[in-house]
Structures are given as structure tokens and as C-alpha cells.
């Protein structure tokens, strides 16, 4: 029978009538069963299967499952219902109900989804923070609540990458380190904000799908390009309106008059003298130290990266625009009689070009990819010959999803996957005190393929039977998640 739980509100508490215990449940808390909870005044089912159904009658928006892609449409192309592993229970004996194995007939082809929740001691998150600001040196320790939870890894284009979690921090350190790491991973994976402090660097608040907050200041935009690229993109727009442009960038500062783009427009030499190390004409490395000032450098006065102008080419009245790679910082100067730059009000058409840089910068976001490996015991819950499941995944006969969201399965041994946490339903991640994360994982395949890889055919349930025993509800749209 279906459990059509309803609730009555008493103050901020709600009363659940899913069973005769009739728990009063406070906001953010669960009832005695740990299955029903009060989420912002709404009774939600947190433990058992969450079945997604595409029914507009519910009036809710759904997390898309497998939209697009080249997957064989005969198997699971836009099914009406997809069973997620959230609340399926883990495969560890006698702790919780064992996983469900669901079969569904779609377009006459029997499909099997093995639904389980994996306990991942070997897991972590990769965080991409869109910012030019200096967050800290590569390999520096990243801390939450004072505990080491990961490290700074590479800088990518306009972004700083962090690698958090992993077995070393989860189980290799002190008990507190493990617990804090587990909390950090779970909060990040559930799209909650987490404050991270980087040794020798900045403090940053990270929340998947939201702008990073670096040292208390919300980042707005991602750089349009490096300083050199910015010169290349805007050289034509500056031509004839200003004599010199310097795009300040911690990585590659660009100088219009020396840059190839300027040369092509016959822009005259200006006698500018840059600090730092010249890479190629008009491109300079290390004009300052990294920091949270202009273009990811530590400077607040852009003139500090210039030497004296060369009197042979420079002339009084020469005009110069200095701008950062996001357009967030900009100043306009004219050389005085002594060839010293003096700040002046920026002409409107140069202001317009700075705004154009800003407009071309995408919103800065934090993105969080959960990464975990499906280990032996988890695979054993799916088939009596676990390695065949791995091979089946590699051969693309079996599709892996996490909470219904598409995953990237890393090539090589085992089933190591990554998933964008913003594509997963709210509250998809849990934990066990060991500490380890509990994440949903589903394997979907043809029924005949399931039999071939040694599946537990006797326990395959038709989808209809799950729908009778589980609550079917549309996934609520949580702000920041895609729908």
C-alpha cells in the first residue's frame, strides 16, 4: 500500500501521520523512524526510495535524469519514472534493508536498475572556485574548523582548484580531523556553504552553485581572459581612443602598444616600462606578488607595476588606461610635463570598454564535484561476480547515475566516478559516524545483461511494486540546483 503521509502544523512543528506514533517533528529534524522529516515546514520522506515521476499534475519541477546524450534510447530514454538510490539502504548486513533491484519495462525492453547507497570512505570533492584572487600557494593545507581537510591544487583558467577529503583526511588523521572532513564533504555535497581557511592564504566561503566569498567579499565575476587575451579581445575597441592600455593580471599582464594585437593596428610605442619578467612582446609575468588586489595581484595602486616612462617615445598628454582582467578595477591617466602619469576622470567611451569587459565576464561560481569509488562490497550487492559489473560499466552496457544525475566514470580500474552535486536531489548525501559519506549510486542495464553478469535475478522487482510501497513525489526544486 502506499504511504500517503500528511501532516498538521502546530507552531513550527508538524505532526506526522505516516504511522501511529504520530511524531511531532521540529524544523530540520526527523521523526522517531528517521524516515520522515520536517523540511522548512513540509513533511518530507528522507530515508526510503525517492521515486521521481514526471507528472506535471504535481506541479513540481524535477531534477532531469539523463537528458540528452548518446545513450541507447531503447533502454532508458526519458523514462517516466526513475528510481534513485537515495534512501535505498546500504548493502551492509543487518544495518538497514538491503538494496532494491528494480525492473521496469520501457518500450518493451526490460530494464534493471540496481539501487543502492554506497558508504564511501574513499571519497572526496573537487572544488573549482572562479576567482583571480590569490587563495593560497599550491599544495597548501585547506582547513575547516581548524582541521586539515584537503589542499590547494592547480590554478586553471580563471579558477582555483581545491582537492578536499579522501581517505587520508577521513581516516588517516585524528578522530576530529575525520569527523570535520566528513561534515565538510557532506555539507559541500549537499550544496551548503562551508568556510575554508587556506594556510598562508585566504579564507573562502564555498557553496556549490554560488559565488565564492573571499576574505568576506563576494566574488562577482570570472575574468574575461588573461591580461594578454584581454588585449587581443579589446584592442580594436581601444584603437584611437587611448594611447596605451595595461591589463593587470597576476598571470600574464598585457600591454597594448607592445602586444601583437597593437602592432597589427599600428599603435605607436609609448615608452612604457613594465616591471616583472617579459615573456613575449606585450606579455609580462610576475609584475607583482599574488594577492586579492588588482587582477589577482597584491597591488592596490596599479602605477606600482610601472617604471618611469622612456622620454624618447613618451610625450606629455599621452593617455593610458589600466584595467584588471575582470574590469572590476580601472583607472585612467595622462602624462604630465615630467612624463609622470596623473589620474584623470575616465572618458565615457573608455568607461564603456571597461563595462564591456565586465559584461563579458561570466558570474563567478563555486562548483563541487563529488568523487568516489564503488568498492568491492557495494558491487557485490549488485552481482555475485563484482568484476563483471565493472566491465559492464566500461563496455557502456551499464549506465551509472548518482541520485539520478549523470556521472563521469574515470577510465582505468574500478568504478571511480564524479558527479556535479548541483544536479542531484536535495539532501542526497548522508554519513555514517565511521566517518564516511553515504552517496546514492544506481546501475541501469538491460535485464538480459543483468542476468549475464551474475545478477540477483530472484530479487528483481517490477517497478510497479516499488511504486506501491514507496512514496512517489516530484523532486522539489532547491535554489541553486538545476532543474
Amino acid at each position, binding site marked *: 500500500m502506499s504511504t500517503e503521509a500528511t501532516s498538521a502544523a502546530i507552531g513550527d512543528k508538524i505532526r506526522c501521520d505516516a504511522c501511529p506514533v504520530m511524531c511531532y517533528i*521540529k524544523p530540520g529534524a526527523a521523526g522517531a523512524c528517521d524516515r520522515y522529516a520536517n523540511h522548512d515546514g513540509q513533511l518530507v520522506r528522507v530515508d526510503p526510495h525517492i521515486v521521481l515521476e514526471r507528472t506535471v499534475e504535481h506541479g513540481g519541477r524535477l531534477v532531469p535524469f539523463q537528458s540528452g546524450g548518446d545513450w541507447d534510447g531503447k533502454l532508458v530514454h526519458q523514462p517516466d519514472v526513475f528510481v534513485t538510490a537515495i534512501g535505498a539502504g546500504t548493502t551492509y548486513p543487518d544495518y538497514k534493508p538491503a538494496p532494491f533491484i528494480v525492473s521496469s519495462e520501457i518500450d518493451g525492453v526490460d530494464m534493471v536498475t540496481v539501487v543502492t547507497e554506497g558508504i564511501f570512505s574513499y571519497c572526496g570533492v573537487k572544488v573549482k572556485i572562479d576567482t583571480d584572487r590569490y587563495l593560497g600557494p599550491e599544495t597548501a593545507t585547506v582547513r575547516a574548523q581548524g582541521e586539515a581537510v584537503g589542499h590547494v591544487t592547480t590554478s586553471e583558467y580563471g579558477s582555483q582548484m581545491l582537492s578536499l577529503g579522501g581517505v587520508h583526511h577521513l581516516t588517516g588523521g585524528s578522530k576530529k580531523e575525520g569527523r570535520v572532513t566528513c561534515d565538510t564533504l557532506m555539507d559541500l555535497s549537499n550544496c551548503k556553504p562551508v568556510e575554508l581557511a587556506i594556510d598562508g592564504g585566504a579564507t573562502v566561503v564555498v557553496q556549490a552553485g554560488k559565488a565564492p566569498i573571499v576574505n568576506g567579499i563576494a566574488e562577482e565575476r570570472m575574468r574575461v581572459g588573461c591580461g594578454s587575451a584581454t588585449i587581443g579581445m579589446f584592442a580594436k575597441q581601444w584603437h584611437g581612443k587611448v594611447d596605451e592600455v595595461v591589463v593587470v593580471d597576476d598571470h600574464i599582464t598585457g600591454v597594448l602598444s607592445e602586444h601583437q594585437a597593437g602592432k597589427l593596428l599600428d599603435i605607436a610605442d609609448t615608452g612604457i616600462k613594465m616591471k616583472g619578467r617579459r615573456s613575449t612582446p606585450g606579455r609580462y609575468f610576475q609584475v607583482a606578488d599574488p594577492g586579492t588586489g588588482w587582477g589577482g595581484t597584491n597591488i592596490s595602486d596599479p602605477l606600482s607595476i610601472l617604471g618611469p616612462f622612456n622620454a624618447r617615445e613618451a610625450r606629455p598628454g599621452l593617455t593610458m588606461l589600466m584595467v584588471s582582467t575582470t574590469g572590476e578595477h580601472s583607472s585612467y591617466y595622462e602624462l604630465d610635463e615630467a612624463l609622470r602619469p596623473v589620474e584623470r576622470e575616465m572618458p565615457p567611451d573608455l568607461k564603456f570598454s571597461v563595462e564591456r569587459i565586465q559584461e563579458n565576464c561570466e558570474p563567478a561560481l563555486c562548483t563541487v564535484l563529488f568523487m568516489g569509488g564503488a568498492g568491492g562490497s557495494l558491487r557485490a550487492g549488485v552481482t555475485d561476480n563484482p568484476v563483471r559489473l565493472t566491465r559492464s560499466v566500461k563496455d557502456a552496457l551499464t549506465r551509472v547515475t548518482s541520485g539520478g544525475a549523470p556521472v563521469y566514470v574515470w577510465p582505468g580500474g574500478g568504478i571511480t566516478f564524479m558527479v556535479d552535486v548541483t544536479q542531484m536531489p536535495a539532501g542526497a548525501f548522508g554519513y555514517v559516524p565511521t566517518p564516511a559519506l553515504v552517496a546514492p549510486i544506481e546501475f541501469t542495464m538491460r535485464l538480459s545483461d543483468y542476468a549475464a553478469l551474475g545478477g540477483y535475478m530472484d530479487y528483481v522487482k517490477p517497478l510497479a511494486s516499488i511504486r506501491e510501497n514507496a512514496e512517489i513525489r516530484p523532486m522539489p526544486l532547491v535554489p541553486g540546483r538545476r532543474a
Partner: protein
Amino acid sequence: MKRLPQISFLPDGKRLHLQDGPIDLIVEAKASANEVRAAYEAAARRFTGLLDELCEEIVELRQAADPVRTPLKGVVARRMHAAAAPFAATCFITPMAAVAGSVAEEILGAMTAAARLDRAYVNNGGDIALHLAGGEQFRVGLIDRPDREGLMRTMVIGADDPVRGIATSGRHGRSFSLGIADAVTVLAKTASQADAAATIIANAVDLPGHAAIVRLPANEIQPDSDLGARLVTREVGALSESEVELALEAGADCARFCVASGLIEGAALRLHGKTIVVEPRGAGNQPLHENRLEDLVHA
């Protein structure tokens, strides 16, 4: 219409899974196929409506138990009270402290009444009722970390042992604890007795007033908790080795008293990676004897 519990087999095809509201049972019986089927049918029959039965007296079940009298009527409710009563004179305890063990006992009782079983167990979220006929035994594993393979220790319970109930209580479980124990596992003659005693001993593993322990009134978390405004443990911070020992020793004192009173057959108390085992004096043939103690401590 009667609300039906969920009744199904686990994927191994041997164990029965029964779930209704907060009750979650794993059941397994060993006997001939016909006897097992009869036992499982009896379990499912008895389970249906059991939660409703308990909920009829839920208000009374959540009150502090009287050491002698009870107005409770239901057979499971009265068993819960009987298990809690020996502690009621000295501690705060409600019959709810023994709900899991008492339900497990009830289902096991229905099974053994309906069929001849070699052995059987009903595991209610870690509170377990056992049935053992002559010559049979159970190997019971204690796990430190459920995500890893390997047991911390295996105990053997034979038909000759008086133990027929095992229960575990601590601050990580679904119900609240007044103490700080990670886990207290108790062996007793019945599951209901083990359940009540595990609750009381886990409460006694404590460091009152310690700054690293975060406590909250139970009813601020669950408004209708039987513990009312009593402070329950939410978090335990760093403790020194001697503090861990002090807390465990406080719980062990309580456990020794329970053993001496004949309420339990033994207990293993665990906090921050350390374990103390309490068992009857000279208990060479008990499930938790001396060399196992060492294994536990060094695990």
C-alpha cells in the same frame, strides 16, 4: 483498513525484513523449510498491528516507570515495564528504554510458538532476541566500523549459556543517550532486559559538566521525546586518555552492579576507541571471558 507493515525477504532469500514506522526487524530462522516458513508466517502475522497496539498506550509508555506498579495492559508494553522496573527506583527510566528488545522478544516468541526451530534471531536495529535449541550456537560479531570488513571481536553464545538477548546503546544510535559512550553492548537473559540495561549503562558512561560535551534538552530536538527536557548528548569533543578511562569506569561500575544483581550476563563498553568488558566473577565459560577481554582492548 488495517495499515500493513512492509514484509519482504532480503536479497539472500533467507532473512526476512519487517518494517513498520520506526520498527525495523531482520529475522532469520534455521530449521526444515516447512518449519521456517511457518515461523516466518507467524512473525509476519504477529508483527501486523503490533505498532498500533503499542501506540494505544504511548502516553503511559513515555512516563517514568514505577518500580512496582504499572497501568499498562498490552503484553509488549508490560514486558517493557518489567525490564525497566528494576532500575526505576534509582534512575530515571521509561518503559521506552526497552521497546526495541521487547518487540524483538515478542516476534521471536511468536515464531518459536508456531514452529520447531533449531535456532533463530530477531534483530531490531541491534537489539536482538535469540533462540537456541540444544547443541546450537550463535557467533555474534562486534563491529567497530561498519564500513570496513572485519570484526572487532566474535562472541560465541551456546545453547548452554543463559544469554538470549543482546542489545547495544550509545550516543550514535537512533534514540538519545544521557551519556557519552560510543556503544555499550549488553548480554542478558532476554532482549528486553538487555535493552533496558544497555540504556542505563550507556547513560552512566559520562563526565558530568565536561566542557567538550555538547548537550541539548531532548524535547528541543524531538518535542515528544520520553526524556522530556533532560539533557542528551549531541557531541563529544576531545577527551584525554584518563578522562576516557574515568567515564568508562563510571559505566563499568553500573554494569558490575547489574551483573551482581543478576540483571545482565555481561557488557562491553566502548568510548573513543577504548573498551572495558564487565562479566561475572570467575566466568571462564561465559561468552565474554578473560582472553576475549584482551582482544577487545587491543582491537
